[in-house]
């Protein structure tokens, strides 16, 4: 069936708009929604889209590139350096062991050595797109399982480079490989290495000395879409450069992101690339869904089901073993194992290569393609299963073995602290040294274990679940301090508390102005912007060092804070339905401008009139 461009675009967008809200409503994340949408519109079911699915997949893979760019942006070089041990150790071992085991398995199943090795390498990879998107959506990317998964995925992205180099060597005698389409192909080995290193150096040097000044120029032009265009150009150029030298564009984009991570335009880049990434990734997931050939699956269901099950079990076992070796706690390790159990999108690329090089016969390739796609589609389901079945059970088991904790809960602490990260733990420690006992709930199981080892009464659990809050004594408590790691989690907790425990006084941490507004909309009275007090204290100290009296600096900082609160409340009241867009950088800048304009009109730093004797002096002089 031939369809116009617009028709296909319409089908894809409509499928997304229909399926994503539905999937979310049903509690399946957006990734699963996209996959389902793809399956439904794909050739196997409704057939709205046909063979062009493959092309779309290639195009949509660019979404993965953008995602890696964004992840790079959030990761400063120093942070990356700190992660070198898990990346090389955990990631390296995962790829090596999984490749070896699968190769062995394939050999046992009667495949020739070169095909077995190709399968082993292809199937050892996991899906960066699905895993990171799902973890991010569930807010577990910063947990130890999330960090470990990220390290492994990063290593896999690097490992693709040598794999691509090895594949031609595995090629059968009658290779139909086309002539060199990358710069490297006609070079000797040392030349290839040089080209690869050169490309990396180009990205780093250009990022430092070329892109940053360019960004400044583009930003100064003050044409909003120009910046977006430049951001896209940046990612596309990196991809082109990387493809030219035969490297993974995703890896290049990641590197580019890291180089720009500490640039002042980081957030602007982020917010500009973000929507494109979201759409393209969605498109990518839909293409994966559409690529599942149900006819093939139905013609040999047990072979495919068996392969998927065996493959995912094998990968999970290897991951769990490695997790154990790298001392990830059991509960986090399970998430780690489940999350990375699928085969990644790069397998599609590698599989098509195996076909090109005659390593695998066509039939095997299409079976494996179905297996890979199904394993990807299963991942969000498995993660949901983990979240709904394994994780809660873990908490119960955990609590049962720690009976004394239950007894202490009977004490009915007046305070519940939801989120014991950087912010919550200061408030918690402060309360504790003042003899106030608090029940602490936290979502990071490693942090919970660490704190428990220090003798803190911390409970692992999601504070946005009302049964868990109930168990933590919310009915009898007076105060809840909400200091979750992410804004989304904070809003969830606030909504649940408002609904089920309206008597609780809420003290809520906010990160920035937009979420302060959202909390105001939810009727939260006590909102604490994370950095406000500290930065004002710093400002006051700076004034003091410049010779302003400490007491005066202290007072004007305090006045400034009150004024800021008041101004925010005022602006919140007049912003109306603009809040939908408030997350964009432009809005944030506008907010800042409004606040600063407010600073000028308001005499927030007016001197204390009581201590100002000028009027008295004037009067005294008049009397003379």
């Amino acid at each position, binding site marked *: 069936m031939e369809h116009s461009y617009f028709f296909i675009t319409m089908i894809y967008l409509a499928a997304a708009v229909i399926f994503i809200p539905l999937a979310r409503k049903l509690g399946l994340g957006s990734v699963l929604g996209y996959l389902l949408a793809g399956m439904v519109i794909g050739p196997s079911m409704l057939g709205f889209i046909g063979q062009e699915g493959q092309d779309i997949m290639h195009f949509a893979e660019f979404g993965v590139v953008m995602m890696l760019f964004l992840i790079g942006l959030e990761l400063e070089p120093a942070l990356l350096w700190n992660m070198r041990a898990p990346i090389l150790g955990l990631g390296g071992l995962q790829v090596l062991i999984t490749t070896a085991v699968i190769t062995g398995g394939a050999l046992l199943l009667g495949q020739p050595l070169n095909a077995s090795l190709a399968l082993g390498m292809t199937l050892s990879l996991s899906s960066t797109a699905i895993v990171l998107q799902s973890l991010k959506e569930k807010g577990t990317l910063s947990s130890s399982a999330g960090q470990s998964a990220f390290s492994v995925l990063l290593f896999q992205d690097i490992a693709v480079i040598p794999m691509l180099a090895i594949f031609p060597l595995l090629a059968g005698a009658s290779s139909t490989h086309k002539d060199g389409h990358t710069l490297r192909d006609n070079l000797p080995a040392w030349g290839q290495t040089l080209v690869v290193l050169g490309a990396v150096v180009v990205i780093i040097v250009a990022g430092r000395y070329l892109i940053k000044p360019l960004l400044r120029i583009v930003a100064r032009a003050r044409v909003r879409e120009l910046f977006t265009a430049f951001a896209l150009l940046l990612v596309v150029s990196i991809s082109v450069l990387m493809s030219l030298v035969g490297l993974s564009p995703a890896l290049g984009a990641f590197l580019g992101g890291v180089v720009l991570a500490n640039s002042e335009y980081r957030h602007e880049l982020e917010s500009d690339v973000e929507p494109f990434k979201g759409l393209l990734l969605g498109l990518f997931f839909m293409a994966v869904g559409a690529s599942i050939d149900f006819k093939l699956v139905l013609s040999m269901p047990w072979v495919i089901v068996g392969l998927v099950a065996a493959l995912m079990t094998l990968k999970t076992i290897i991951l769990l073993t490695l997790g154990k070796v790298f001392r990830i706690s059991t509960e986090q390790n399970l998430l780690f194992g489940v999350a990375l159990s699928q085969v990644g999108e790069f397998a599609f690329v590698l599989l098509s290569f195996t076909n090109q090089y005659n390593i695998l016969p066509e039939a095997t390739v299409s079976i494996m393609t179905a297996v890979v796609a199904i394993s990807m589609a299963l991942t969000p389901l498995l993660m949901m299963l983990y979240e709904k079945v394994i994780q809660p059970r873990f908490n119960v088991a955990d609590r049962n073995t720690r009976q004394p904790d239950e007894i202490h809960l009977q004490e009915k602490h007046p305070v519940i602290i939801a989120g014991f990260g950087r912010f919550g733990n200061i408030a918690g420690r402060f309360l504790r040294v003042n003899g106030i006992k608090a029940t602490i709930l936290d979502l990071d199981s490693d942090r919970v274990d660490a704190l428990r080892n220090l003798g803190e009464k911390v409970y692992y659990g999601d504070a946005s679940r009302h049964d868990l809050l109930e168990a933590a004594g919310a009915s009898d408590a007076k105060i809840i301090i909400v200091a979750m790691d992410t804004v989304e989690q904070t809003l969830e907790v606030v909504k649940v508390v408002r609904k089920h425990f309206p008597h609780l006084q809420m003290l809520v941490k906010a990160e920035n102005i937009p979420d302060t507004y959202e909390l105001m909309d939810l009727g939260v009275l006590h909102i604490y912007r994370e950095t406000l007090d500290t930065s004002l204290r710093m400002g*006051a100290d700076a004034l003091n060092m410049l010779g*302003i*009296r*400490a*007491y*005066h*600096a*202290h*007072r004007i900082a305090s006045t400034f804070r009150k004024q800021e609160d008041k101004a925010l409340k005022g602006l919140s009241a007049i912003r109306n339905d603009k809040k939908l867009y408030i997350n964009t950088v432009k809005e944030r800048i506008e907010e800042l401008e409004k606040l600063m304009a407010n600073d000028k009109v308001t005499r927030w730093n007016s*001197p*204390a009139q009581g*201590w*100002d*004797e*000028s009027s*008295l*002096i004037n009067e*005294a*002089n008049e009397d*003379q």
Partner: protein
Amino acid sequence: MTKILILFAHPALEKSRVQAALLPAIKGMQGITLHDLYEVYPDLNIDVRHEQSLLLQHDIILFQHPFYWYSAPAIVKQWQDLVLEHGWAYGSTGTALRGKRIGNVITTGGQESSYDKEGWNHHTVEDFLLPFKQTATLCNMQYMPPYIIYGTHRITPSLIQEEVVAYRQMLEELRDGKSLTQ
């Protein structure tokens, strides 16, 4: 040599003319410790132990401050409330400050003539300082007559300089024991 502790209190020194001139002039004088209360405790959170140990290291304590509503700025009261603890400064076992001398160094906006039964303030500065005097007595300290610079609302720059010189001289004499009362 007598050791002098000056407890300086001015909440808005940036607005001041006379106290702002006195302060740098006495900074670094030998035998004199200048302790700027508002600068050290901008949040009025006074370190009681530190203050008490300072008191123990000195023989003469002077509150130097502008005369606000016939008394000292708020931090002086806060200081008194917290530092002069029962059982330390007063009470049956409170003998830490016994025998030390204490007094006020004051700048007033009004002229000397206004601090008089006939003037519009109706009382002398010494009258108004009665709580300081009794506090000293309760703490077994000897209260010295106040050192007062009157009429700062109309004072001229050259007069300020004269006051600075005079104040320095007074402190030197006090330190070297040349004058007993002041």
